[in-house]
């Protein structure tokens, strides 16, 4: 066990800090700023920020150099994560492409596909969305019904996807579609890449429980996709998607955002009046804040263990599912703690007089509830842990 950063690593960190000092002035979250104003400008700003960061060598650290990556060490990846969090830089607009599709193409894509798509994911020139879930295929993803029929050199796709982030602005979509309706449900699915400008695609934005628009429905009506946009084998999409889902669950980014949240909440609780003192005078609340700190540290070091295993060439093991489940529970406890910290004021909506921190905590609460649904519900995570880690018999037999 050894968590030292080498002198070389520390040098790397120093260079990054210098770069961030020089660039974070214009790195204010451009999307957040664009609330009711200049949406297109904000979008361009977000693309620009990712490109700037990439050009400096801080995006796609694990990716092959050939396709615009850095082939950096995992330690360097950790350093970049840490420093971006420290400087509270805005999130990257093309996250889905970076965390899900990119790694999938590196493993399963053809050379042509890699050359064609990877660099533009990194530079944010092409934004990606994911077309997996369907109205009747949520937790039971393999029940998906979207069909892709082969017609000459093309797939013809018809069906409906849902819970698709970024769909209204995405340039491309990676999706799962059923190419063999007669095969067992997991064996007739293919993994396709689709240009969102193709005729036959209709996007319908969905309003979420918090009132915001984060998801869309995407309808495909005989949308034609060239055959060379198939990833991996025909009918072999399910296995690829499973890998994809595992990518989605790894990473230390949760820790960073949770840490920021706790820090902010701690500040609020230390100043918010409660009776004759402040909210954080309550000893029970103090323990819960300490407990939240414990849980976040746990998540951090769980992430480090997963990384260590990857560095050593071992499979990440339980880490990914465990981390995702723990993080989503933690996020909810933290949001609940925030509302209890607010006391009577927790009933106030965003724009109300007397609202605490501009309504951040109610938003965080809704967000937290969404986190244990999106990307596999907590129930599905527990199934996964029980079956794949503990080796218990399947509870869901179909």
């Amino acid at each position: 066990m050894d968590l030292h950063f080498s002198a070389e690593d520390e040098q790397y960190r120093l260079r990054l800090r210098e770069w961030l000092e020089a660039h974070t002035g214009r790195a204010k979250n451009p999307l957040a700023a664009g609330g009711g104003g200049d949406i297109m400008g904000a979008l361009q700003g977000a693309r620009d920020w990712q490109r700037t960061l990439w050009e400096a060598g801080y995006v796609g650290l694990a990716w092959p150099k050939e396709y615009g990556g850095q082939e950096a060490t995992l330690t360097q990846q950790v350093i970049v994560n840490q420093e971006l969090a420290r400087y509270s830089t805005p999130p990257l607009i093309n996250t889905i492409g970076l965390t899900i599709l990119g790694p999938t193409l590196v493993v399963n894509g053809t050379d042509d596909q890699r050359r064609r798509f990877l660099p533009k994911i990194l530079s944010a020139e092409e934004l990606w969305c994911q077309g997996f879930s369907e109205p009747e295929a949520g937790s039971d993803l393999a029940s998906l019904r979207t069909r892709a029929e082969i017609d000459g050199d093309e797939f013809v796709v018809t069906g409906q996807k849902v819970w698709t982030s970024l769909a209204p602005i995405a340039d491309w979509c990676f999706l799962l579609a059923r190419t063999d309706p007669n095969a067992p449900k997991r064996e007739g699915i293919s993994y396709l890449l689709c240009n969102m400008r193709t005729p036959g695609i209709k996007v319908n934005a969905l309003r979420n429980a918090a009132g915001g628009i984060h998801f869309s429905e995407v309808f495909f009506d005989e949308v034609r996709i060239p055959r060379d946009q198939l990833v991996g084998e025909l009918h072999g999409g399910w296995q690829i998607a499973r890998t994809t889902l595992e990518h989605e669950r790894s990473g230390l980014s949760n820790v960073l955002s949770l840490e920021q949240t706790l820090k902010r909440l701690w500040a609020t609780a230390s100043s918010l009046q409660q009776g004759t003192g402040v909210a954080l005078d309550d000893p029970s609340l103090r323990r819960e804040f300490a407990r939240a700190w414990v849980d976040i540290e746990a998540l951090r070091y769980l992430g480090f263990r997963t990384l260590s295993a990857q560095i050593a060439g071992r499979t990440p093991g339980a880490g990914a599912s465990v981390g995702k489940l723990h993080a989503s529970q933690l996020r909810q406890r933290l949001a609940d703690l925030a509302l209890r910290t607010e006391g009577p004021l927790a009933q106030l909506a965003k724009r109300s007089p007397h609202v605490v921190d501009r309504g951040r905590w109610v938003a965080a609460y809704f967000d937290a509830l969404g986190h244990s649904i999106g990307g596999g519900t907590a129930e599905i995570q527990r199934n996964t842990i029980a079956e794949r880690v503990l080796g218990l018999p399947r509870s869901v037999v179909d």
Partner: protein
Amino acid sequence: MDFELSDEQVALRDAARDYFANRWSRDHVRDALDRPPVVVPDELWQEVAELGWVGIAVAVEAGGSGGDVATAAVIAEEAGRALFPSALASVLTAAVALDRAGDRWRGALLEGVCAGTRRAVCAFEEPGGAWGPDAVRTTAVRDGDRLVVSGSKILVADVEGTDTLLVAARTPTGVALVAVPADAPGVTITPMIRIDGGQIGEVVLDAVQLPADALLGSDAPADAGDDAGADADALARSTYDLGTLLGAADLLGVAEAALAVTTAFANDRVQFGRPIGSFQAVSHRLADVLVDVEITRSLLYAACLAMDEGRPDAAELVSAVKVAANEAAVRATEAAVQLHGGIGFTWELDVHLYLRRARAGVATFGDGAHHLDRIFAQHTQARAAT
């Protein structure tokens, strides 16, 4: 001994449930979230008043329906279930306070409130992060034959359209409710917005001048003798307790509604070839919610009886039911979101409306920690007394 609703209460419950189902759509609530607050149209307010529900717990001779606390709770629970605005419980509570304050307060105002032509609501909470009468800093000071009220109230429920505010203020002998006309000079009302779209507001009282008898009950010291009116401090506190109890009943209705829609969804929604309600991850969570709901209902009935009988443990039981109702409502509505999956997280489904009402209700009339502290203090006092 009987510890369930009487036949009359069951009939009232069924009538209220039917009425709200026919006359109130949850779409009003959803739509109003974009343009808050959610309000009861005048026509509907007139209807519920004529049905006798605004004055449900006011004496018949004072213009009310003569029901007890348990009967009022039936209405509050059904309003919660239907997401009907909490104005009904707010005005109902203020009406009870007026009724109990003695003959001085029976008459035109109270009759108008019961008839739906006038409105009164209570104003307890203040900036400063604590709930209830003990946290009141607003003062009511006698100045010759005037009573001068100064202070600041927030989170005042259903404040718009009200003509009389029953403002909780500190007096030399405790806390008292003072009847303040909403249009009195020195009163400034600013709207606030609740997360469920509920109508609340801030009321600033800048040395508001009132007649000396604007105070409900007597604030004379206990040994001052023969005042026949209610004790002002006890009245203010029992009014807050009544509001708390009705708030708990509202949350119980919300919890039951969320449980019902989720149970129905779990029966219908098929994943992996089976209704999801056949998975224990779903069914056991709903069973736990049912336990929460039944626990809450049991405590609600107990608290109603204790209040109606004026028992010394009434305040403790009111706190108990609020603790239980807070938890039941949060657990039921969070389970509803989680078990509906993605669809439960959409604007179109009602699930988030229940969640909003639950969270708003928890933050009103005291959260769990507040009431547990209150129970502990009362317990300790009771032990010290024996």
